[in-house]
């Protein structure tokens, strides 16, 4: 109404005051709103119905999500015992658990003690071999080479070898947990659990 002032002067006809525009409340159109109530009875019941419907749907959905995570897994135990720490002299890399667990157990004094190195090449997942004479892990698939600590120094491997969690069981044996990784590129080597002081 841009010309309201002009028309009021030239045309002195009384006009009804413009109706106050009612605001929409909760997305309900103004004509569904009465002056003394926010909602009509019908609005209240329909909103309640939708709330109950969506509420039960989300409870069911959350329940289904939980249902999809079983409490017991029929899988090999990710933890295993690997003998006593004194079986691994300083500076050695043991291949004892390569066939059964794909893990080297290396005693590296400069790394703080025993580490459990995953024998999964970080390039494409082949199993490297420990070449004791050359003091390196060498992957037969594409020639990736890793130092005794597991640092990649030749071939296509993009990252150092991963380490598993290592600790002691109650009976004093080494306990290795293959559900927890320690990655060099994340600065996790040297964290408690990534090595076992000897």
């Amino acid at each position, binding site marked *: 109404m841009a010309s309201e002032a002009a028309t009021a002067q030239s045309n002195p006809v009384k006009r009804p005051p413009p109706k106050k525009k009612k605001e929409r409340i909760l997305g309900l159109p103004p004509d569904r709103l009465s002056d003394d109530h926010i909602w009509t009875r019908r609005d209240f019941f329909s909103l309640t119905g939708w709330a109950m419907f969506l509420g039960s749907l989300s409870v069911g959905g959350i329940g289904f999500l939980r249902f*999809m*995570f*079983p409490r017991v*897994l029929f*899988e090999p135990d990710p933890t295993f015992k690997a003998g006593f720490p004194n079986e691994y002299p300083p500076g050695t890399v043991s291949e004892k658990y390569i066939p059964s667990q794909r893990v080297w157990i290396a005693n590296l004094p400069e790394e703080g003690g025993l580490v459990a190195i995953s024998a999964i090449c970080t390039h494409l997942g082949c199993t490297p071999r420990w070449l004791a004479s050359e003091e390196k892990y060498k992957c037969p698939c594409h020639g990736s080479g890793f130092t005794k600590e597991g640092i990649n120094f030749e071939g296509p491997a993009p990252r150092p070898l991963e380490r598993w969690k290592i600790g002691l069981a109650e009976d004093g044996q080494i306990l290795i947990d293959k*559900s927890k990784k320690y990655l060099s590129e994340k600065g996790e080597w040297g964290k408690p659990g990534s090595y076992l002081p000897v």
Partner: protein
Amino acid sequence: MILGNVWLHLHPPKMRRHAVRIKFTWCMGGITFLLFLVTLVTGVVLMFYYRPTGEYAYYDLKYLMHDVPFGAVVRNMHRWAAHSMVITVMLHMFRVFMTGSYKPPREFNWVVGILLITFTLLLSFTGYLLPWDQLAIWAITVASNMARATPLLGHEGPFAAQLGIGSRYDARSIMLAGTIVAPATLLRFYVLHCIVIPIAAAMLMILHFWRIRKDGGISGPL
């Protein structure tokens, strides 16, 4: 009742002549649907012999391939139709894009099509595990390892440490029903492959075909 029936109104009442020219449509949408029907029928036939358990799956496959009359034919029809469907669905998408058929008023149907190509690929992914041979197990192992890096939901992804998400409860473990590809994974993929995804895809296809009609039939020449 009759007027409101989606089954009787999937097809438009009239077609423009240019729109059914092979040169324009390549018939890729229709061929894709035909291949879907082939995989559907042969898949149901295969279900009469296949048991999705670690003990039986691979041997049921051998049985189908060597001892069941026409078993090898049915299985190979299923395989090839499935592989071809992935190709034709991509060609269909390419044709729709090149003819500008994704533009308004058809933009909603393009989105439905995006969902359909997603479900097509998910059907391929879940079906790939069912032979339960080395190729299948390791392919799903490698592919599912990608889910580790899902933001917020994967245990090796961004924000996983802050949220305290471990390998037992994340995007990958809900897919695999555990932390490795195991018989539980096979059963889960089987249910998804045979029931959940086909029903979802079929419902979206009905919507897809109905929208063609609603949006004024197959698009005209540019």
